[in-house]
């Protein structure tokens, strides 16, 4: 019974911007699904507001709508495209919730759209706590296994307080219904915590519902990934065991596949329960994951939850097993059965089997607490990690140590030198789950803790604890050995020790260890991920390294290009870089090269074994990359290694790779240095006669002070060689400068701190360009909405620039060309300019793919990353123009007047973080980047495009209601006109006394409301914060004041986040929002696919 013939077109909903809990994995799954459906001959219509995705590349779907994923916009798309079916299970919770809304409001029925891959009843049974509990009870009645944690459903705080008594007291778990990534859930140990967490949860839940549960903290946690087809065939694709026991969100746990500590009987019980659940819930076709807790004392099994859709775990499971869940889910949705679908990897066996692994996979989470110093870093059932790394090894120790070094974070690898500290202090610290707890445990072991003590403190399974002891014992052997003999070295490598770790232990340099190792012939081999533990021959070269005997890398004829990916997602280096790497792979494959991808991020499209000719799932460290280059050089010719598309991670390896004789193509390591080193870059600018803000570099406070005194406060200070504005700050006075130098740990003579004049009131401009050594192709010019001083990654921007004229573009082009030439770029360069007064300052230049490349590419319908990859390998702009990869004439700087306007808006993770008192973290934007993702709004005029970007990022702008305005003194002038516009659009204005006074004098009426600090009035007049919490405010404008004053608006802004009220923190944002509201008032906001935009643009170019 093959494909259904009654479906000709399918609407796929993506997951929108990258947020914590919903990240690149949905680009991976969505891209797979779209490709499969297209290959099946269906017309694929896609909606996703996230431009940094491969799935929104125009060639992936037939009609690609980069529009907000809201029921309103998706309805417009349905009305226009009239798809036969809607596939909602591949775009995370966003897609599922949107589909449920469209079902609920009758849109699907109205337009005759069939939901495929899931039915509403099954979604509700899987997602609704109460219904799911009934499912588990029914399963238990049938098969005698599986139960739910004892729990009560609550819809009010009264219910919640009563519920605790019913469960027999604290601690209890609070879980809000229908939120993603476990948002808002947590453990309450007392009434205060309960009121806080449950209050928040009731607010976050779209159905004002939370579940209170008995605590199963410390139990073993497992997850099964299942798939079912319409003939009721069910397979378990993967089992995953959490290293961190219950209490830590799976997304924040170190996880291991396959399960390591279950007997077959226990595993089969989980499998039986899982299969019975997928049947009982009624997931007709597709995948789901089910989480279990197992009591380590007696094996009691509790079913925690299920997701009736493709999830983060299914992406991990797909990469861990080679079984492409999303791809197969899409095929099942259009009518195939598992036995009709071939296993891609063996090509000969069907997908109706269960992968078996002859290796171990470890996933480790990547956190960004350093970006949110106020936030409580305790790991709970609310996911807080921003990315993850996966590693594969032939045993747990190898996979674990590879995963930890893949995190590419200082201190993430185990260290065995120095004094570990006091055992009891360390054990006490290990009780609290945090980022890096595993390192604390290792130090406790070094300090003499026993396995029992470690288990008592952490409840980590004794088998895992023993593996840590094993690693420690090998470190001890390395320490004690007279010399590094081949046996010991091989043993250490088999347990995942890096050359750097061995070097640290032996007091040697890393390259010396490497030389010794090579001299002794201790090198890794590469094994294949083949779904079947070598039972059948694998056709897909998906490799991981291991210190074993036999390598499986086959010889090849064609020259290979090795593309280094960007590693785990983190703030500042996310999916945008994966996008560029994937594009490079596609373009170079088309150009006749064999493409080899290296990356360790399981969420991405780049680590889909279909993307490149060969995939190495490996850490992106010098050691690991050098070994891959070696292995590939034995397999055939190597044309080069591409380092400039994966962000700072590969760029940082560039010089060392070259020093080791690796052919780095594109911009040379020396040129990279010329752009990154202040002195060298200063000379480039001076030669080109370009101004930069006054600046200097300092390694001490005295030096910094001297520079600041000379150029004047405020100054912008930051460490060198960082991405995402890490540690960047605007400093207004000497006291703060002193404290900054004091606090900065990363300052050293080789890593000085940069002190720049801060340009107040400047317009910031981003430029992406290609340079081949002779010709410049200006990819696009983006004008930031927010002024300079807010990190470009957190700032909204417009392309084409909305207030710059032809003369400005000319200057930008000339400056860009001069810098590209001066630095020696071959490929992409991103330059940030600031226009202050009439002077165009150069802020910085990055000779690599930037975060904005996907946005620029989509806004101008030109594949910049593909072109950059080709230029890296010697093609010229002229050749690429002739080939058609670049437009025949013109470039992104000279877009036709009726080109669409694209607005990029950043999405911030505020709602994820609380401080230790449980209060939200402040939402003010600054020079350090903190956004996790972005959306794009595209339309014919700026106002509509901006309104769309807001709808995509935070929810629609209000078109009526009450707007609260409170701005800093310096913003009061610029506030007047937008405020008047709001009134004209029928808004009622609320303001604090100072702002209200200014408005009044300008003839604008505003109701004065009480500040939080004033407290409730004598007649019960509420404060602004209370009003926000009561849902009486629809729009908030709150700009922070100077330094100290920044805290005044804190309560307002955190209340806005808690209640999801749009909150503008800059006047430029207000002005843009007013244009957006104006556009919405004029009505008729339409939708248009990227393909249609591109057609018009191409027509206009000709």
């Amino acid at each position, binding site marked *: 019974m093959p494909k259904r013939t009654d479906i000709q077109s399918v609407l796929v909903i993506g997951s929108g911007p990258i947020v914590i809990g919903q990240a690149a994995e949905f680009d991976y799954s969505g891209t797979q699904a779209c490709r499969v459906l297209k290959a099946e001959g269906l017309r694929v219509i896609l909606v996703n507001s996230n431009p940094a995705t491969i799935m929104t590349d125009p060639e992936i779907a037939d009609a690609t709508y980069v529009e907000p994923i809201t029921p309103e916009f998706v309805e417009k798309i349905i009305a226009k495209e009239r798809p036969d079916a809607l596939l909602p299970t591949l775009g995370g919770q966003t897609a599922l919730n949107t589909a449920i809304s469209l079902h609920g409001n009758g849109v699907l029925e109205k337009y005759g759209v069939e939901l495929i891959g899931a039915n509403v009843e099954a979604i509700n049974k899987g997602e609704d706590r109460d219904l799911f509990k009934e499912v588990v009870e029914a399963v238990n009645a049938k098969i005698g296994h599986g139960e739910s944690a004892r729990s009560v459903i609550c819809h009010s705080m009264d219910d919640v307080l009563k519920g605790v008594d019913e469960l027999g007291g604290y601690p209890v778990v609070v879980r809000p219904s229908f939120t993603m990534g476990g948002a808002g859930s947590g453990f309450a140990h007392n009434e205060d915590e309960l009121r806080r967490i449950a209050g928040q949860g009731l607010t976050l839940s779209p159905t004002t519902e939370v579940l209170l549960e008995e605590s199963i903290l410390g139990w073993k946690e497992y997850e099964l990934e299942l798939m079912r087809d319409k003939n009721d065939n069910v397979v378990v694709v993967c089992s995953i065991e959490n290293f961190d026991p219950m209490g830590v969100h799976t997304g924040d746990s170190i996880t291991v596949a396959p399960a390591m500590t279950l007997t*077959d009987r226990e595993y089969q019980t989980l499998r039986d329960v899982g299969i019975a659940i997928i049947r009982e819930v009624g997931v007709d076709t597709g995948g789901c994951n089910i989480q279990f807790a197992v009591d380590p004392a007696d094996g009691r099994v509790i079913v925690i939850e299920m997701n009736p859709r493709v999830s983060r775990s299914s992406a991990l499971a797909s990469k861990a097993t080679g079984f492409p869940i999303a791809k197969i889910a899409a095929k099942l949705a259009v009518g195939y059965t598992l036995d009709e679908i071939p296993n891609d990897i063996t090509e000969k066996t069907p997908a109706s089997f269960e992968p078996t692994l002859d290796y171990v996979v470890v996933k480790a989470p990547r956190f960004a607490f350093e970006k949110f110093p106020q936030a409580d870093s305790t790991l709970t059932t609310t996911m807080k990690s921003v990315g993850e790394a996966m590693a594969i090894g032939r045993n747990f120790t190898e996979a674990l140590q590879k995963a930890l070094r893949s995190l590419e974070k200082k201190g993430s690898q185990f260290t065995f030198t120095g004094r570990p500290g006091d055992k009891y202090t360390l054990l006490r610290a290990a009780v609290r789950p945090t980022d890096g707890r595993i390192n604390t445990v290792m130090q406790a072991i070094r300090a003499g803790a026993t396995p029992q003590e470690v288990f008592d403190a952490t409840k980590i399974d004794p088998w895992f604890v023993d593996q840590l002891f094993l690693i420690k014992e090998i470190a001890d052997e390395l320490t004690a050995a007279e010399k590094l003999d081949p046996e010991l070295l091989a043993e250490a490598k088999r347990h995942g020790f890096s050359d750097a770790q061995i070097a640290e232990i032996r007091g040697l340099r890393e390259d010396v260890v490497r030389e010794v190792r090579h001299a002794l012939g201790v090198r890794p081999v590469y*094994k294949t991920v083949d779904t079947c533990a070598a039972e059948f021959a694998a056709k897909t070269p998906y490799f991981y390294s291991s210190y074993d*005997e036999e390598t499986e890398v086959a010889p090849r004829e064609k020259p290979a290009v090795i593309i280094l990916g960007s590693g785990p997602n983190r703030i500042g280096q996310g999916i945008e870089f994966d996008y560029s790497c994937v594009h490079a792979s596609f373009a170079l494959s088309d150009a006749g090269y064999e493409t080899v991808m290296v990356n360790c991020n399981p969420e991405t499209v780049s680590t889909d074994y279909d993307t490149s000719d060969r995939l190495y799932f490996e850490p992106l460290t010098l050691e690991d990359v050098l070994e891959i280059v070696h292995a590939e050089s034995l397999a055939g010719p190597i044309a080069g290694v591409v380092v400039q598309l994966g962000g700072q991670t590969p760029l940082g390896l560039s010089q060392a790779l070259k020093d080791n004789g690796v052919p780095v193509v594109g911009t040379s390591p020396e040129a990279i240095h010329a752009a990154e080193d202040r002195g060298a870059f200063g000379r480039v600018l001076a030669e080109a006669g370009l101004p930069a803000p006054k600046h200097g570099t300092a390694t001490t406070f005295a030096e910094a002070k001297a520079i600041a005194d000379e150029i004047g406060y405020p100054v912008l200070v930051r460490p060198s060689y960082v991405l995402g504005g890490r540690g960047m700050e605007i400093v207004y006075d000497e006291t703060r400068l002193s404290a900054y130098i004091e606090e900065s740990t990363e300052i050293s003579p080789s890593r000085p701190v940069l002190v720049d004049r801060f340009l107040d009131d400047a317009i910031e401009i981003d430029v992406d360009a290609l340079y081949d050594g002779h010709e410049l192709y200006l990819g696009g010019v983006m004008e930031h909405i927010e002024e300079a001083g807010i990190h470009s990654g957190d700032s909204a921007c417009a392309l084409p620039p909305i207030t710059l004229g032809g003369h400005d573009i000319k200057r930008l082009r000339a400056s860009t060309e001069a810098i590209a030439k001066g630095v020696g770029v071959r490929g992409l360069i991103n330059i940030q300019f600031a226009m202050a007064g009439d002077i165009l300052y150069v802020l910085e230049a990055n000779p690599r793919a930037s975060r904005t490349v996907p946005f620029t590419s989509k806004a101008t319908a030109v594949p910049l990353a593909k072109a950059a990859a080709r230029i890296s390998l010697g093609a010229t702009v002229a050749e690429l123009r002739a080939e058609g990869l670049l437009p025949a004439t013109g470039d992104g700087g000279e877009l036709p007047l009726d080109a669409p306007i694209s607005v990029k808006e950043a999405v911030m993770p505020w709602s994820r973080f609380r401080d230790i008192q449980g209060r939200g973290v402040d939402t003010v934007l600054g020079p350090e980047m903190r956004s996790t993702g972005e959306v794009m709004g595209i339309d014919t005029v700026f106002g509509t495009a901006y309104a769309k970007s807001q709808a995509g990022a935070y929810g629609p702008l209000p078109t009526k209601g009450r707007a609260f305005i409170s701005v800093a003194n310096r913003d009061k002038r610029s506030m007047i006109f937008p405020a008047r516009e709001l009134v004209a659009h029928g808004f009622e204005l609320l303001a604090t006394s100072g702002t209200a006074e200014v408005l009044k004098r300008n003839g604008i009426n505003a109701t004065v409301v009480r500040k939080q600090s004033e407290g409730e009035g004598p007649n019960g007049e509420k404060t602004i914060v209370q009003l926000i919490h009561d849902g009486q405010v629809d729009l908030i404008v709150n700009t922070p004041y100077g330094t100290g004053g920044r805290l005044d608006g804190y309560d307002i802004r955190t209340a806005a986040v808690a209640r999801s009220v749009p909150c503008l923190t800059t006047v430029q944002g207000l002005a843009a929002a007013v244009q957006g509201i104006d556009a919405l008032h004029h009505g008729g906001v339409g939708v248009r696919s990227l393909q249609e935009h591109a057609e018009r643009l191409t027509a206009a170019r000709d």
Partner: protein
Amino acid sequence: MTTSTRGAVKTPAVLVLEDGRIFRGRAYGAVGETFGEAVFSTGMTGYQETLTDPSYHRQVVVMTAPHVGNTGVNDEDPESRRIWVSGYVVRDPARVPSNWRSRRSLDEELERQGVVGISGIDTRALTRHLRERGAMRVGIFSGDAVSGDAELLAKVQDAPQMKGANLSAEVATKETYVVPALGPDGETLPIGTAKLTVAAVDLGIKGMTPQRMAERGIEVHVLPATATADDVYAVNPDGVFFSNGPGDPATADGPVALMRAVLERGTPLFGICFGNQILGRALGFGTYKLKYGHRGINQPVQDRTTGKVEVTAHNHGFAVDAPLDRVSDTPYGRAEVSHVCLNDQVVEGLQLLDRPAFSVQYHPEAAAGPHDAAYLFDRFTSLMNTVPMEGQRA
């Protein structure tokens, strides 16, 4: 001739294949030497069941899963009274077992039962070798048994082949025993009170098989491999069962003759694994040795009557040669292939269309493995309930 490896973890060991390929690792379990047929098993769980499965008699089992022994050894999971594998090959043995049911570590158990093993070798390379060249003889040598490679190779080449080996009698029970039926609440029913009685011919039976029948209210009389038709009918069976077991089915003339006698009488009949091969032979089909067999718990088998796919446990090196595309005529009426492995189209089940007899090549009793095929025991039960044979019961 074996000693402990514990406390001397780094005792070198050598694995020698009959085609001369050699792997060097460390001793695991008992130290000494052992020979057998090298086969690989791809199950990621259930090593305790695998080790105690009599079908592995005279085989050296290579575990493709790298970590073995993590959950230790308990008293509930063995499938028979002892470990049967003749040698054990693992990559990373557990140092510390962790499970609430664990009683002792696996290497202690291997050593206690004198099972020679090897650890720390590239098991994937070995598996690929066996996949490409086929199952073959192997020897594992550790401690004093290690000598020159050529000498070891000669020893391996002198070891007996699996093809032509008649092993059932070596592993089967010598005395008949009874597994009582279980009542609705899992209580043991007094012998003689069950609704149904099955005579199970033990060719190397796994403990879970009579257990699965007992759970369905069946009293199971387990008979030695050498049982005759008289022995079988002496227990007044409602059905006869032929178990799994080791060795080459081409040598199992005794069980084939017994099976024919049962078919003649039309008693409901069910066979598993070796039992399936016996049915194949009884019906006149041939059997053949697979290149490297099916051993694992993830094999997709299609029930050709329903089209549904089961994920199943396998352990077989031989298979029945029966036509997939048509119904065959046999001395006992029409027969067809009821189940097929989707990986390689190997016959996985047979059924007679005119008599109450069927068999499967795989393991519906699982242990280790998924429970997808447990319905076959229900099928056997209903066969016995719906086909009351004359003169079967007093």
